[in-house]
């Protein structure tokens, strides 16, 4: 049994790192209702900034992680302020984020400090303890944010942006806040990822990865934190356990997106959380729809 421990730890690591990024996107897409095809770029910014800081030994690992988060936050302001203020059609917004992601990839490919397409080789710093601590912190922050008045404003915007605006919710500020928070989580995920795999290169943070993140959130349920986390567990661990699946992972993502859009747009969990199943009878008594 003990022979399996490194293997299980590895799966825990990749799933945990993925769940942090997925939770970030879930706040923005699942709870605020805006679709992004560029969130892998925030993961990439977090990975590269923290990676560069430890690679050239400017700072220690923990400072680098925070700097990665800060970098992703700044990037989200740069892309978010003009696009969210312009109140683009939702598909145009998604395309703008796609353009942002592609522009970042070209930038990473051509800078000297990032070592271009060859990538950076880093030391391993992300231990299971660090990841566990980050994961708990992220999930705690996310669930509290969603219960706060800001979270409620986000959900109101997702349900009906015009009605929310009429009720006094500032669309621009709320959406920007949600984007900044989600980018910070993605940046953290990137820093953890860089120092776990100990190697980063630009094509780890491309449109394909953004689509994977989006597929995870959509499949898990738009309006649930635990749904996307469960789907992330399945998506990330299944190809690790069944190696031959690896090749079919991406076609499966694509097919899944189409099938979900057609048959179950609310995703696996819909608006529910895992914890809801324990109180399901109480809810029924109150006559709640969920």
């Amino acid at each position, binding site marked *: 049994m003990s022979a399996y421990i490194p293997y299980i730890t590895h799966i825990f690591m990749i799933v945990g790192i993925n769940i942090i990024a997925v939770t970030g996107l879930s706040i923005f897409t699942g709870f605020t209702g805006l679709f992004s095809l560029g969130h892998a770029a925030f993961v990439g910014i977090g990975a590269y900034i923290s990676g560069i800081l430890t690679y050239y030994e400017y700072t220690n690992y923990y400072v680098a992680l925070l700097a990665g988060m800060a970098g992703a936050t700044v990037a989200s302001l740069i*892309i978010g302020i003009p696009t969210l203020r312009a109140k683009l059609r939702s598909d145009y917004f998604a395309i703008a984020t796609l353009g942002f992601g592609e522009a970042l990839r070209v930038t990473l490919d051509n800078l000297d400090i990032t070592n271009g397409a060859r990538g950076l080789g880093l030391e391993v710093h992300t231990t299971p303890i660090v990841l566990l601590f980050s994961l708990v912190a992220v999930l705690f922050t996310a669930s509290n944010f969603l219960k706060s008045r800001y979270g409620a404003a986000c959900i109101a915007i997702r349900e009906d942006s*015009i009605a929310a605006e009429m009720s006094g919710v500032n669309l621009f500020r709320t959406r920007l806040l949600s984007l900044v928070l989600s980018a910070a989580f993605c940046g953290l995920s990137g820093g953890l990822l860089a120092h776990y795999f100990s190697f980063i290169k630009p094509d780890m943070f491309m449109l394909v990865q953004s689509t994977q993140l989006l597929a995870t959130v959509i499949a898990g349920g738009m309006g649930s934190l635990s749904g996307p986390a469960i789907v992330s567990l399945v998506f990330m661990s299944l190809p690790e356990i069944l190696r031959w699946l690896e090749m079919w992972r991406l076609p499966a993502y694509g097919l899944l*997106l189409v099938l979900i*859009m*057609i048959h179950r747009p609310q995703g696996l969990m819909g608006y529910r959380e895992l914890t809801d199943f324990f109180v399901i009878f109480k809810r029924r008594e109150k006559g709640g729809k969920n």
Partner: protein
Amino acid sequence: MFLQTLVTGLSIGGIYALMAVGYSLVFSVLSFSNFAHGAVIMLGAYMGLGLAAKLNLGLGLVLSGAIAGAGVLAVLNERLAYRALRQRRAPSLYLMISAMGCAVFLENMVYATIGAKPYPFPDKITNQVLDIVRNIISFLGLAAEHSVIEIAGITLSLLDLAAFVISLLSIYALHIFIMKTRTGIAIRAGVDDLTMCSLMGVNTNRLIAVVFFLAGAFAGLAGVYLGIKYYVQPTMGSITNKAYIAAVIGGLGSLPGAFIGGLILGVLETFVSAYISSVWRDVYTFTLLIALLIWLPNGLLGHETEEKV
């Protein structure tokens, strides 16, 4: 130098235009960005390659096979991935996500089954294209060397010249089709108001199938050209993102817009590569896309499109 850059840019722009038409056609009727179009272009190239290399067919059959094949593929794509959403009146964003899923699915199916190896088109096909172009040029009384022509100090590759002329002619033909024929009138009515159009007795499912077939046909044509000029490989889809930007520049949903947008993007990119930096070219292109979406979301020739609440 300036003139040479301009001409090169225009010839690249012609290809962008050919691909952008497919995005615009679908957007004009269903108002969503059909990202699966890139994958259809790529599969059109593979179909052409299959016909040319495996069955050893000539240029005419290869082209018509790829055009028809990609057209049918686009129709199937609509039927399987979009129709149910359309009939449920799902938000256009759902259609776009579904299209994204199709693109990821098709592209990676090619990776998983055929592999990432780039294949060139057989020389026979390339030479056939060059022969035709040379014959036309000598008919016009000009002299062409093996694969380039020199006019007034400008060197132009015959393949690029052919692509520009073909894209101009085919987009013009499409324009005539939409303006003059009965089906074309139905398409224009559908662009205006699909529900009203169906109340007036137009079979909208068939109408949309026609639109997707046309878009797919252009994808097949563009795919074969890209295959002849470069290679046939699964990542061909990435160049189609540029074509999408071209469609946005011209105004999504407008055919003349797609053509003009393609030319503008081609010229702009060539000038940036020539005078500023070729490695940073794509950063400029994508920044331009974002700026356009913010300040000029309807493009140069598009009309107001509002998202239905």
